[in-house]
């Protein structure tokens, strides 16, 4: 177990290093060099050369990469072009906001999906199963931006129950909590359809197993069958999928954050990419990859805990 953990950590460190190099190199090798990118496609060659020299970009890639790594290890992520502030300040602030949103959405979407998935998969083909499955397909197939605009039109514009944007300032008389309702709702609805389908499929599979039939035949009550025998086994396959949702909730919510003007990580990355704010893109990409790997890592361990057949 310890050996496995160490191996995984070493593997993660190596991946991060590789990704940091790739992102660094991609910014370099993507058509046009960095100075050309900053100045735009039609800048004169003299302007590009001047800026290249000014930024020290005329030195070998590896030298600059090692320097960059050195700065990162000292905790210096550079200066953001658009926010005119140290990258670290912007990044942690926005990431914190997104983690906050993601945590709430995760806390809602997981129990809700398990409940609905279990109810649907319990009796395959029942009216409840069809109803829940239809609902799941519907919410999963409406794009986030459409769902966001739709919910905002109904609850913010028409009914006036909720604020239309989530700037995380309580100035205009809307509490922070009320501001979180709509973005969380969009994330939950969008994400839930997929999770419910996964859990339902797994549940259906488990309910067909001989040990469930045995439990039912020996006279065990249905709730006991579900909770003692079916649920735990039905959760093994969806478990990794559930953890993968953290990825989406943290790094993939660009659309939700933009529609609701939420000052989060996704919107920050979008604006950084649009403005070619390279220092911010690099740091943000590293964080996103790190989160992806961390959830996978936790997934592996959790998998082993859930399934006694797996030893790590």
């Amino acid at each position: 177990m310890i050996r496995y953990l160490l191996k995984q950590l070493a593997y993660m460190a190596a991946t991060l290093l590789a990704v940091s190099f790739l992102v660094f190199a991609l910014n370099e090798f993507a058509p046009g060099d960095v100075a050309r990118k900053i100045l735009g496609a039609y800048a004169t060659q003299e302007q590009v050369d001047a800026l290249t020299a000014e930024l020290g970009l005329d030195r070998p890639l590896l030298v600059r990469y090692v320097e960059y790594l050195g700065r990162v290890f000292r905790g210096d992520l550079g200066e953001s072009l658009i926010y005119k502030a140290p990258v670290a300040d912007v990044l942690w602030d926005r990431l914190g906001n997104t983690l906050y949103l993601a945590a709430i959405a995760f806390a809602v979407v997981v129990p809700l999906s398990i409940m609905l998935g279990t109810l649907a998969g319990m009796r395959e083909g029942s009216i409840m199963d069809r109803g829940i499955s239809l609902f799941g397909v519907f919410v999963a197939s409406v794009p986030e931006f459409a769902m966001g605009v739709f919910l905002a039109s109904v609850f913010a514009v028409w009914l006036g129950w909720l604020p239309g944007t989530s700037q995380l300032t309580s100035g205009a008389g809307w509490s922070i909590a009320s501001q979180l309702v709509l973005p969380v709702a969009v994330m939950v609805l969008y994400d839930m359809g997929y999770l419910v389908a996964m859990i339902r499929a797994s549940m259906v599979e488990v309910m067909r197993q001989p040990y469930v039939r045995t439990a039912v035949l020996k006279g065990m009550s249905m709730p006991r069958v579900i909770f003692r025998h079916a649920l735990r086994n039905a959760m093994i396959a969806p478990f990794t999928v559930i953890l993968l949702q953290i990825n989406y909730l943290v790094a993939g919510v660009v659309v939700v954050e933009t529609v609701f003007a939420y000052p989060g990580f996704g919107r920050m990355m979008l604006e950084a990419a649009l403005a070619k704010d390279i220092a911010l893109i690099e740091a943000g990409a590293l964080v996103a990859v790190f989160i992806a790997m961390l959830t996978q890592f936790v997934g592996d361990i959790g998998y082993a805990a859930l399934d006694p057949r797996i030893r790590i």
Partner: protein
Amino acid sequence: MSGTDQHPGVSELQRQLSRKQIGRREFVRMAALLGVSAPAAYAMASAITGTPFASTSFAQQTPKPRGGTLRIGMRCQDLSNPHAYSWIEASNSGRAVLDYLTITGPDNVTRPALVERWEASPDLKTWTLHLRRDVKWRNGRQFTADDVVWNLKRVLDPSVGSSMLGLMKGFLLEEFETGEVDAKGQRKKSTRLWDANAIERVDAYTVRLNGRTPQLAVPENLYHYPMLILDPEEGGKFGVGSNGTGPFELVENEVGRRQAFRARRDYWGDGPYLDQLEFIDLGDDSAAAIAALASRQVDMLYSADINTLSALEKLPGLVMHKVDTSFTAVARMKPVKPFDDRRVRQAFRYATDNEAVLKIAHRGLGLPGDHHHVAPIHPEYAKIDPIRRDVAKAKALLAEAGYPDGIDVEIACKPQPGWEPAAVQAMVEQWKEAGIRCRINMMPATQYWEVWTKVPFGFTTWSHRPLGVMNLALAYRTGAPWNESSYSNPEFDRLLAEAEGLLDVEKRREVMAKIEGIMLDDGPIVVPVWRALFTFADKKVLGFQMHPSAYIHPNTLAVSPA
């Protein structure tokens, strides 16, 4: 009016008004330019024409309530270098804390601000600015001529990168060779004050501008938005807590998120009425702007996009504010192949149908454009024969220029404001018929502004300016920093300088007719539309008037208690 100090031009204006050569509005504007106070000018106009002037814009009928917070949805940009602002949004934030020497109102009339009154010499080369004596910086220091001299000199320093330089170049600056050579072996050129005494401190409250050439629009140029008056002790930097003579103090500044201002109670001018003013950054997504306004997370929007018009019209409790302007975007070409041939540039103008673009892209709100970048609302607008769409002529011009099979080009444009890509698409379709095959390179706005002066062919937003000569000086004078089309025409430059020195509108219009002719014949631009500018605000917002430059005057704003 006591006649002693009065500029001789004023009596000329009075004569013109009585002969109906100029309108009353134009009379007031021109008289104000020459140092007559606005109320006096309005009174003179009424006396001459015999009809009372309708209530003026700034005059407030009912007293405005004090107190309260107003939130405005607007991009919160970097504010650190006011003299180099190239965004009106940033200047709106700056305007809360800092003042200008003059102020151009929503009615296009320029009035004194930090300058109490001004005098121009008969040849319009010497302008004397008398400063207010009752202005104190927030830290208690007296505002004096030294502050003004420092600010004026700083914006004209090429290393600061202020767009004031282009406006003032002909008037106060001269070009010289720095003695250095660039990588190509060409001698580098720069600008400096043409005379050591060009910006003269006469006494503690008087500054004199001694110009090289006549300049008419000095007061209006002094309200060009980077011309904010900073505290010299802060060295040109601006941020939270920065000193200012203005109505508010910047208390919070988070770029991309929020800027908050707290009122000061000892402001020398009108207001402030609010306790607190906030700008809230809602990003570039118009859905967010509408939603925020609908749930009153903001009380008004800085300006509204044409794409949001129908949605905003349906929201209850809002008032639409609208004004006609010379706001536009121009498809401008750099002198590189194939645009280096003036017949090709003409072909673009003959291939464009302005009326159709206005309908398609701006729902008809505004006026069809003039391809010389002088708008009908400009006083010196000369109505010359416009270029009307003529596809056959456009084709012939291309063939003459050596492109009988048409040309393939690429236009860079940005997705915001929403009418711009619509206009580009409409024009590209129209051009197709004339054999101009144009690819659209749509790039994010921030990216566009990185390259706007560099792309060979681009569609660039141009703000409204009160005088036609101002846009021309910024965008088409040889060597001006914002001359994005690298346009250089000695005859144009000469006529422009001449027009800038003519007080008489009729005479100026004659020169403008020539300039406009040059632009239609040789110029680097297609100007499809003159936009009307509009926005929506909650009914409770008082004192707001849509300004043709989308300037917000925070000191005049108030909210009625709910």
